[in-house]
């Protein structure tokens, strides 16, 4: 166990909500799926990200929480291999990230579905790009759509779907090739508040059935607390991780839990951490 990991386990242990669950502990002790070490990103002289390090265990749900423009999306795009880092190391399953790779699925802020393809063909789009056999994946695509409760719309065009349904389709697309890591870049921020809460519950349901390592970028404190095993709080000046918090709430989680005192305690603490980041 490296020192950083031990430190975070220790910090987790002294949280007021007493000890971590056995599940959480087991996750933390297995070798990390994603390892980010001293990553830095410069845009000319501007430091977009400073010295970010963290590990993510297999099947862990980690949120990166921070205000708009703090560089959290940049960080995610570097993990996706879409943006080059200036310094540091990013590795997935032990191999350094130098470009996009098939064990990663990405969900963007917008659904980015192709308007001329049906929902099913959109979900199968990665299969075509990866030159896999379409016939083998049609069944899986339909199962994913059924899980996201939009299988009735499989043969419709994206414009015939609501915003929430489109984003569900884009989550199915990110999962079609069975990636081990799912990267989500503020996927629900374009949705209205009610749909947004529903989508959170849906996402957890899909995740429960289809265990992936999830890195979820958001600027919503409640969303981060509700969804995650662990929340990393990112501050704006400097653009780095200023707080790490394990969310030890039982799973499966329900909307009603947002009313619980234990949930709200986490929300308050996260808010305090973000405010502390602003003072810098």
């Amino acid at each position, binding site marked *: 166990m490296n020192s950083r990991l031990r430190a975070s386990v220790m910090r987790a242990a002294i949280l007021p909500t007493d000890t971590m669950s056995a599940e959480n502990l087991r996750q933390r002790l297995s070798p990390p799926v994603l390892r980010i070490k001293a990553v830095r990103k410069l845009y000319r002289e501007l430091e977009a990200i400073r010295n970010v390090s963290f590990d993510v265990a297999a099947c862990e749900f980690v949120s990166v929480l921070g205000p708009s423009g703090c560089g959290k999306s940049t960080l995610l795009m570097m993990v996706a291999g879409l943006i080059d880092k200036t310094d540091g190391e990013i590795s997935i399953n032990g191999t350094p990230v130098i470009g*996009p790779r098939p064990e*990663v699925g990405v969900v963007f802020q917008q659904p*980015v579905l192709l308007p001329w393809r049906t929902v099913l063909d959109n979900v199968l789009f990665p299969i075509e*790009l990866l030159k896999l056999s379409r016939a083998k994946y049609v069944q899986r695509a339909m199962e994913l759509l059924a899980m996201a409760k939009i299988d009735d719309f499989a043969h419709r065009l994206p414009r015939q779907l609501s915003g929430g349904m489109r984003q569900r389709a884009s989550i199915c697309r990110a999962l079609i090739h069975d990636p081990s890591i799912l990267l989500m870049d503020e996927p629900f921020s374009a949705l209205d508040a009610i749909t947004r809460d529903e989508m959170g519950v849906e996402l957890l349901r899909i995740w429960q059935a289809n265990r992936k390592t999830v890195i979820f970028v958001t600027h919503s404190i409640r969303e981060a607390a509700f969804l995650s095993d662990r929340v990393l709080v990112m501050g704006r000046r400097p653009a780095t991780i200023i707080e790490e918090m394990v969310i030890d709430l039982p799973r499966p989680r329900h909307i009603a839990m947002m009313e619980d005192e234990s949930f709200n305690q986490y929300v308050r603490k996260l808010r305090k951490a973000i405010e502390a980041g602003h003072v810098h």
Partner: protein
Amino acid sequence: MFTKTRNFLVELGWPIGISLAMLALWEVAVRELGIRSIILPPPSEIIDAMIRRHELLLAHLWPSLYLTVLGFALSVVGGIAVAVLITYSSILRKGFYPLIVVSQVIPKISIAPLFIVWFGTGTMSSLLLAVLIAFFPMTINSALGFQSIDEDIHRMARTFMGTRWQIFWKIRMPNALPYIFSGMKISITLAIIGVIVSEFVASQEGIGYLIKLAGGLLDTPLMMAAIAALSISGLILYGLIVLAEKRTVYWQMTTDADGGAGG
């Protein structure tokens, strides 16, 4: 589907009704005011001329239409090809694209007499003039279509390891189709203008030649019959493109993508 067709017919009903009313007004006015048909023939006389002299009209219409369609086809293929080059070569994009845009300001029709000097009075001049003026809107619209890809869509394709080739055929091409059709609708109209103008300037056949000839003979009914035949042909060609567009660009609700660059 049924209501769609009905709405279409209702929408079509208005302009057709107004056209018929105007033709009737024209007919009555010419007769009541006693205007001589050498100045303005009534619609009935024009239709009569179209029927009686249909062999002469068709004989001159075919070569013009042939050159129009050929010039249009060359413009479409060439325009798309140049648009692809502009999209993928930054040197061409930075060097040529501004020139193409600026060249839109030049009234290219004025080059017609020069083409006669270079290529003679035959079909070559007509064809080249049609291509010259139909080519540019095609290029500009297609280039716009290939390049107006949402950055997010491009990123999405890259995360799934899409190659440049895949991104071109699976994203850029379908994305450009509505723009390409807008370009085609402008180009077909311009191709007709190119052919007719060059036939005005110097030619021994074609509907443009016939219009000029009839004008010289003060045979106004024949002249207007020729203009009518040309207009109807133009409408049919345009209609065919709209039809193809509706089938190809099925994902667009409306065809209001006509705001592209004009000639």
